[in-house]
């Protein structure tokens, strides 16, 4: 693998993300708290540009002790949503909330001296 600098971490505010093409490899770089995550920009559903979509917090349904619905709320987990068809993936795990076997392809990423390095096959 070869490490390629794609940009500066300071250019991605906390909670934000950017998408880069390194030749044919497209990578989404997500900054969330102290973590920097990277995934291939290919939705495992139909090949859509998943990392170019929007981030939404996971929608949860609140159930009361007597099993009634108390409505919907946004949870803490953050999802990247494929703009083609709306497939959602947990940013930390890369997994679809209803089928963990459907997951984004992670890309090795590192931050050194404020620079973001992405590993690409040589």
């Amino acid at each position: 693998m070869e490490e390629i600098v794609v940009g500066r971490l300071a250019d991605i505010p906390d909670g934000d993300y950017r998408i880069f093409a390194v030749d044919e490899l497209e990578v989404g770089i997500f900054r969330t708290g102290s973590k920097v995550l990277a995934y291939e920009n290919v939705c495992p559903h139909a090949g859509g540009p998943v990392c170019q979509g929007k981030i939404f917090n996971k929608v949860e349904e609140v159930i009361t002790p007597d099993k009634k619905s108390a409505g919907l709320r946004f949870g803490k987990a953050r999802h990247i949503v494929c703009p083609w068809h709306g497939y959602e993936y947990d940013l930390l795990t890369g997994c679809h909330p209803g089928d963990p076997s459907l997951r984004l392809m992670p890309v090795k990423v590192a931050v050194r001296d404020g620079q973001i390095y992405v590993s690409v096959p040589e």
Partner: protein
Amino acid sequence: MLTKTPRNGKNGKRSLRISELPKISTATDTREILAHAAKEARRDNYFIVDVDAHVTETAFWPDVIDRMDSDVYKQMARAFKERGPAPGLLNTTPGLLFQDVFGRIPHQQRLGETVPGGRTHRQVTLVQRAMDSLGIDYMVVFPTPMLVLGMHPQAEVEVVIGNAFNKWLTEDVLPQEPRMKAMLYLPFNHPEACVKAVEAYADNPSVIGFSVTSTRFRAVHHDSYMPLYSAIQATGKPLAFHSGFHWGDQSMQQCNRFISMHSISFVYYNIIHLTNWIINGLPERFPKLRVIWIESGLAWLPFLMQRLDSEYMMRSSEAPLLKRRPSEYIRDMYFSSQPLERSNLELTEATFKAIKAETQLLFASDWPHWDFDLPNSITTLPFLDEEAKRNILGFNAARLFNLEIPEHKTLKAKPKKAPAVREPVTA
């Protein structure tokens, strides 16, 4: 996915091109949204007919209104427009704005990209961008909010709007792009007006068929429709039933989530119409009329074929015009592929066999709607051979609609490379 490049940079290092990609919004160019599809299209080079895509007629509503025959309804429509963005008179269905999953799918929300000025109609440019990105040779376009116009309480309004839309489409849009085709809107709540529409457009080369929007409470076997079916049969062009949804339908009001209503509604209306069509012997009355069922997916068909066969064998006296089992008539019909159910490929394969997909199935994208399918919905199916894929993607439709196939995409042509390198698409 990575393409290795020569080591031609400094110090023996290869030189890699690094660029930034945009976040996709309602302002993003269709070609950017579909850039991944365009890569597949360049690789595969199939002949593709998309039998169901959509224009957004409400984005050009003043132009449609201008085409209305009646000054009174024209004034009514303009009066609605002056009160706000809602297209006058259209009586848009409850739930229509839920489709983009509340902002998650921008292209469903709006194609707000810029297009060059000039003589090319904006709708034509949008369609051309999608066709070129998806590798589509012909695209058959239907309206969008008008898919539920059949629920309008005033039959005469359906006639006025339907006729105006047909004029706008055939006079302003289709003449600019011969690859765009239409199955014209029939104001089905008014049978006589439908016959007039068929007569008016029977010889228009851009009109390759006629369509009924299925979302309505009308019995397709009613005697008032027999002149219409005769007229369509005489044209040699097919009749399509394009399904849709309506959350105002009392049955659908039991569903508290859009996903529930949408999943059922698109199938529900075509189940009813196809059942009436078969049981009342319309295939026997109009043996040369070819019928297409659009945008209900396919999974409902094995269910309905078996259910109708089972009951018919016990109650054939109630369907005296039938000379065969209901499923045999269904196998002679045509179906569009989208939204293709494929979360269980064994069931998908069985469905394809049941409906004779190799000759009867027609690829459809439904672009630009949120649940659109790409050509890879067909090319990645592991149980189809190359000939079946090519038939479904384009050749079945070319035969049905008598479309010219470009020389370099005829049956003898081979793909540049083997398709379907990715795992089968699951949905």
